[in-house]
């Protein structure tokens, strides 16, 4: 009986290995943190552009007041886009990730984007939610405070 069970186990193992060749291939190399940040920064910038367009439409439709739009532009979109350019410059100039990370954390703290929740009306928070999520991905990556 034990021999039969052992035989069945061996057959099972061999057959599964043969039917799933893709799971046994060598895994791909992990993305270096600086490149991962560059990609996430790209996603954040795209989300900012989408939020800006959505706000423009909302302003035309009367869903968002011009003053709210101005506040979001001044407190979130402009500082964020400026921060993106600063981080981009750091990533392009600094090959050493640990040094780059320190400079990026300094730039993030100076930009003050994390304080946006206090200055943007609650109704507009939903419009910028996508960008906030993208920002938080970057904040977690570098160890900065999330929004």
């Amino acid at each position, binding site marked *: 009986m034990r021999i039969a069970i052992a035989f069945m186990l061996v057959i099972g193992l061999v057959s599964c290995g043969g039917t799933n060749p893709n799971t046994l291939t060598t895994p791909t190399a992990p993305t270096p943190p600086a490149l991962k940040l*560059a990609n996430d920064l790209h996603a954040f910038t795209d989300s*900012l552009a989408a939020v800006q367009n959505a706000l423009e439409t909302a302003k035309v439709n009367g869903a968002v007041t011009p003053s709210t739009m101005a506040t979001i532009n001044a407190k979130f979109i402009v500082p964020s886009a400026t921060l993106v350019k600063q981080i981009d410059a750091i990533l392009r100039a600094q090959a050493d990730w640990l040094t780059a990370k320190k400079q990026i954390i300094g730039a993030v703290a100076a930009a003050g984007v994390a304080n946006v929740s206090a200055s943007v009306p609650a109704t507009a928070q939903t419009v910028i939610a996508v960008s906030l999520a993208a920002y938080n991905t970057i904040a977690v990556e570098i160890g900065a405070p999330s929004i």
Partner: protein
Amino acid sequence: MIPVPLALLIQLIPEIPKLVGDFRALFTKYPALSPADLMAAIAQVSTTTDATADAILAKAALDAKA
């Protein structure tokens, strides 16, 4: 009747290839990306990012004037 431990083992069989793959990943030495290649890859992404950020800032400036 199949004893419970054997039944559990049989249920685990489909997971074995994945577990083997995860185990191999722990001991796989990846070819390191050279600093030059890494910087080139970053530059490729950041050029587009920078252009989008510029467009956002320009649009915001226009909106502030309106």
